[in-house]
């Protein structure tokens, strides 16, 4: 029986700890600690050399003091000394001290690395493990540099002890995570994969974590692990509960290893080899079967371990999404868990089912559990379980059950926790819109939503109901009638007043025939709410009133009276006052015809993706949105408002932020927001990409220069945006100087700490471009935006773009981001006007080979004259009309201004409409003859010649 509780430890330490625990007050504790610190300091400084035991004891005391939350500024040297001791206990304390109080003091790191190196080569497994654990715990770059090549050797060596192998595998994993560039697997790959076959299950457990991580990065190199993992899994799954002895946990054979194996398989598509696949399917079936067997133990540990494997297996089944039989079985199994008495299982079952609902094979099976899920929504005690139930209802919703689900969610909303109300509101609004067959139901639902949870109904929701009512004639009368009735409630939410004001203003005439809702009654009803509303709502109501004058001339006098009264026409709010004055004038001066034109019914809104969906996505973040949302947006195409891709919302945002006079901003921004594939910014493809309409590709965090290409022809807009951060750019250029304003917006509600930005010019760009800036404030509050100004000077021609590196802490995690700043040579173009004669004379002069470049490329989208013109202007050159004899061609001229010299550029674009080819055999000619012209041209070509 292991028992540590002998007096084997350090007596002095025990006494010190109990002293601290005896302290009655914080002050007493601090006093005692200071006394101890003084004591230790004098011991360390004393002339008498300390023996290993005392050193260990004092270092350990220091560590304890540190763990109590006090700063320690000495003792590091003594700890490092302990590392070279031959006694395990001393060494262990030394390593522990180092691991807990990591210090990037370079000198110490060198000493520590030295000690580690000695221990690694000591061939003493205990010491090797200690050293490896220290590397794994600290995982600094310096350590990676020192040991990244050594550790794989230890890992695959034949004579390494099993426990050392385990530590080495995970140690390598840690180094790979911190410095992937330093860990080169190469030759070790196959030997590492074969660790999956190791005799020792502990080694497999440790190695599989490493393999999983590596194969996420290089799936192809580690492909062989699939068949090995399957055979290992099948051996474990088919073993009897006692076979694996040490690794059997409450009668479940190797639960953690099984989970890890199943997780590794989720990095790959289903195995192609039939035999392997058959074996895997067999395994999965066995796991599902085992879930049905009576438990071998009543202990919760047994069922937990068993179910851990089951849930991981279900994730794999969902990941493959190709075995209808397994999917349905998984769904039935989860259905059983929905009524299990363990809250944990109910929670997890709801969570897994959410992903199952998005598979076409199991969607129907999931739907059968609707009653249970609704019940869970009503009765669960844990808010997070209710949240999962709401998520699942949302995921399983389709046309057949939408009415029921929406009704249940609405009724739940009345009692829902405040924390999840806003999300629930968005979900109800989306479902109601998506599955509305009958739009009066939709209108009812949304009005109910506003009635029940008005405070949580965001702008997007009520905008959307108005968009839909305006776009559909069949529902307008009903909507007017319903809002009219809703407004009759003595207290109604301001959002209801907004919707009511807007809809009655537009379609009040549709219900005016009924004497109970005659124009005057409608107006009085609206006006009775007026004084309780905020300024924006009042402004909206004023617009509704003027629309009333147009709809119902008989109300003109009353309304004019209202507008004329002091509280409107002299309102202290400028907007209200202006509206009152203008509307009053409009109604008294303009003739009926003019009024009717000005105040005509709103034209239909362009159909596009629901802004609510975008909001929900934003709220939930990319991962939480998961498959379901992606699925939704796919399906949505076919549903109600067919069209609009995911990128569009950001695109419009970018467009609205852009205030370039050139119309090209919008045209360019409109669709290319999605990253342009992984387009290499190589010269040839660059401009083609600018013109191409990139299809919506999945946004990925890794591609950070996606914003770059859009800025070739424009100066303002959103350069980068993710869940946390939005970076906007405004820039202006004059001659060889430029100024760029960067706006960093924190999109979260949490502060960004240690926010730093650095602009660097890689390589030879340093001598070509001069970029100056001041550091920004290190703290960015939630929702706040900070600004940074860059002063740019172009010294000579350049081809790279400067890099912007942004670092900040968000919720403790360090975020690091590198972007290309859109500074391109064409920004320094100065447009030049010239006559046809001049142009062709110069064109002919520039005939040497290095002075021209030419390119033919295919147009990716239709060649619209206006678009092309806008883009050419955006490029910075002057577009010369009536120069080229062929009116189809475009001719441009400009001078590139650098500090060292000025370079004239001429450009011709010859579109060939029949072949849909931008047949650009027009050379670009450059006036100056200077040394780097070929290089310059090479760079310039993608921008200008290709156009």
């Amino acid at each position, binding site marked *: 029986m292991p028992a*540590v509780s002998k007096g*084997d430890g350090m007596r002095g330490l025990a006494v010190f700890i109990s002293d601290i625990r005896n302290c009655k007050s914080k002050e007493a504790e601090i006093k005692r600690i200071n006394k101890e610190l003084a004591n230790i300091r004098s011991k360390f400084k004393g002339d008498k050399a300390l023996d290993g035991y005392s050193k260990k004891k004092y270092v350990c005391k220091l560590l304890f003091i540190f763990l109590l939350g006090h700063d320690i500024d000495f003792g590091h040297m003594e700890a490092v000394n302990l590392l070279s001791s031959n006694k395990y206990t001393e060494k262990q304390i030394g390593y522990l001290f180092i691991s807990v109080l990591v210090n990037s003091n370079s000198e110490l790191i060198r000493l520590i690395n030295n000690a580690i190196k000695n221990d690694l080569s000591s061939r003493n497994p205990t010491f090797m493990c200690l050293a490896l654990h220290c590397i794994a*715990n600290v995982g600094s770059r310096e350590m990676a540099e020192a040991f990244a090549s050594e550790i794989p050797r230890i890992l695959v060596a034949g004579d390494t002890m099993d426990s050392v192998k385990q530590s080495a595998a*995970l140690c390598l*994993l840690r180094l790979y995570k911190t410095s992937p560039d330093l860990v080169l697997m190469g030759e070790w790959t196959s030997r590492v994969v074969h660790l999956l076959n190791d005799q020792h299950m502990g080694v497999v*457990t440790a190695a599989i974590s490493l393999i999983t991580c590596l194969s996420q990065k290089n799936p192809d190199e580690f492909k062989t692990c699939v068949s090995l993992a399957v055979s290992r899994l099948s051996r474990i799954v088919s073993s009897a509960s006692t076979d694996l002895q040490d690794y059997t946990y409450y009668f479940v054979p190797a639960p953690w290893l099984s989970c890890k194996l199943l997780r590794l398989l989720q990095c790959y598509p289903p195995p192609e080899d039939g035999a392997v696949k058959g074996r895997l399917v067999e395994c999965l079936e066995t796991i599902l079967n085992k879930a049905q067997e009576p438990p071998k133990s009543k202990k919760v540990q047994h069922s937990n371990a068993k179910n851990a494997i089951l849930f991981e297996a279900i994730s794999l089944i969902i990941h493959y999404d190709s075995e209808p039989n397994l999917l349905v079985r998984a769904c039935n199994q989860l259905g059983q868990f929905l009524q299990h008495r363990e809250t944990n299982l109910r929670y997890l079952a709801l969570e897994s089912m959410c992903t199952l609902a998005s598979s076409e094979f199991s969607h129907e099976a999931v739907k059968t559990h609707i009653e249970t899920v609704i019940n869970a929504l009503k009765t669960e005690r844990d808010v997070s379980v209710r949240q999962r139930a709401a998520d699942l209802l949302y995921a399983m919703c389709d046309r057949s059950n939408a009415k029921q689900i929406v009704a249940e969610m609405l009724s739940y909303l009345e009692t829902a926790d405040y*924390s999840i109300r806003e999300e629930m509101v968005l979900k109800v609004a989306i479902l109601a819109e998506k599955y509305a067959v009958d739009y009066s139901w939709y209108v009812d639902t949304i009005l109910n939503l506003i009635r029940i949870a008005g405070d949580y109904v965001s702008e997007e929701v009520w905008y959307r109901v108005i968009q839909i009512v305006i776009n559909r004639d069949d529902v307008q009368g009903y909507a007017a009638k319903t809002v009219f009735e809703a407004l009759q409630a003595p207290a109604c939410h301001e959002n209801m007043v907004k919707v009511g004001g807007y809809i009655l203003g537009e379609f009040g005439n549709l219900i005016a025939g009924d004497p109970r809702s005659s124009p005057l009654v409608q107006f009085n009803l609206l006006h009775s709410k007026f004084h309780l509303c905020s300024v924006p709502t009042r402004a909206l109501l004023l617009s509704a009133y003027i629309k009333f004058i147009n709809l119902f001339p008989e109300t003109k006098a009353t309304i004019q009276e209202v507008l004329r009264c002091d509280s409107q026409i002299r309102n202290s709010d400028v907007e209200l006052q202006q509206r009152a004055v203008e509307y009053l004038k409009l109604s008294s001066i303009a003739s009926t015809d003019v009024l009717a034109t000005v105040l005509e019914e709103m034209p239909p809104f362009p159909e596009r993706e629901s802004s609510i969906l975008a909001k929900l996505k934003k709220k939930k973040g990319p991962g939480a949105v998961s498959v379901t949302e992606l699925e939704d947006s796919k399906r949505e195409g076919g549903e109600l408002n067919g069209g609009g891709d995911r990128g569009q919302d950001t695109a419009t945002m970018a467009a609205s932020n852009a205030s370039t006079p050139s119309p090209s901003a919008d045209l360019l921004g409109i669709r290319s927001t999605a990253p342009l594939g992984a387009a290499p910014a190589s010269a040839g493809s660059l401009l083609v990409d600018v013109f191409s309409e990139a299809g919506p590709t999945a946004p990925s965090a890794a591609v950070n220069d996606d914003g770059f290409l859009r800025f070739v022809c424009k100066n303002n807009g959103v350069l980068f945006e993710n869940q946390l951060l939005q970076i906007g750019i405004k820039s202006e250029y004059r001659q060889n100087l430029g100024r760029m304003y960067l706006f960093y917006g924190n999109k979260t509600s949490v502060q960004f700490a240690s926010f730093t930005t650095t602009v660097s010019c890689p390589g030879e760009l340093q001598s070509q471009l001069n970029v100056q800036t001041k550091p920004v404030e290190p703290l960015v509050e939630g929702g706040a935006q900070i600004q940074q100004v860059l002063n740019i000077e172009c010294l000579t021609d350049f081809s790279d773009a400067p890099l912007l590196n942004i670092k900040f802490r968000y919720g403790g995690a360090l975020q690091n981001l590198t972007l290309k700043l859109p500074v391109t040579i064409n920004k320094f173009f100065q447009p030049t006007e010239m006559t046809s004669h001049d142009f062709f004379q110069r064109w002919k002069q520039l005939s040497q080979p290095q002075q021209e470049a030419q390119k033919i490329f295919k147009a990716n989208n239709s060649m619209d004259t206006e678009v092309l013109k806008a883009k050419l202007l955006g490029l910075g050159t002057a577009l010369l009309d009536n120069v080229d004899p062929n009116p189809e061609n475009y001719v441009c001229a400009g001078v590139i201004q650098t500090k060292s010299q000025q370079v004239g550029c001429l450009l011709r674009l010859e579109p060939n409409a029949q072949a849909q080819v931008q047949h650009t055999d027009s050379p670009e000619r450059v006036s100056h003859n200077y040394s780097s012209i070929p290089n310059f041209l090479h760079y310039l070509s993608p921008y200008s010649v290709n156009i």
Partner: protein
Amino acid sequence: MGKRALFRRVFSFLVQAPRCFDQLLFPLLCQKNKKTRVRRRRDHEPCLLLLLLLLLLLILLLLLLHEAKTAFQRTTARPRPPLFSFLSIRFILIQNRAGKTRLAKWYMQFDDDEKQKLIEEVHAVVTVRDAKHTNFVEFRNFKIIYRRYAGLYFCICVDVTDNNLAYLEGIHNFVEVLNEYFHNVCELDLVFNFYKVYTVVDEMFLAGEIRETSQTKVLKQLLMLQSLE
């Protein structure tokens, strides 16, 4: 067992104090030590009244905390998976109900202030939950999987996509090892032997991953280390 005798000598105040307040000596896994359980029950009798009072206080406190929790949940929106995610375990924390940390093992770089903040937040999130709640809590961009043993909360912070039950049982496996190693482990063992607890953790979890799951193997190794000087 000599150590416990030593503690009693050193902290006579602890022994004299009513045992029901002395959470620190409760075995974490009580089913193995019937003696303590019996004694505990007997000791409860004289302080029944006190207990009732405490209960009332506790209810009040819980109500307050619940309020605080909902407020907390409102401010922290739904979890967003981190942008740069590789690790599975972010940190392991052992805290008592009063919020004292008994072990903190970090597998991700945090600065000291951030660590302190995390410790406090975890405590606030975990202690308000009762037995009817799940053992999982969403926490910032991650989730916490926790289990309570006597007065101690063992919390593991992992990615939202990680396997909840596997880590829940990982905690239990760890506690069983501690229990064997310290021979009926109680909170005080973790206080006085904090440096050994780190060794146990490193044997079972390394670099944010599970290193060894066999209790026999871990204990054998720990015993071997114990015998070294």
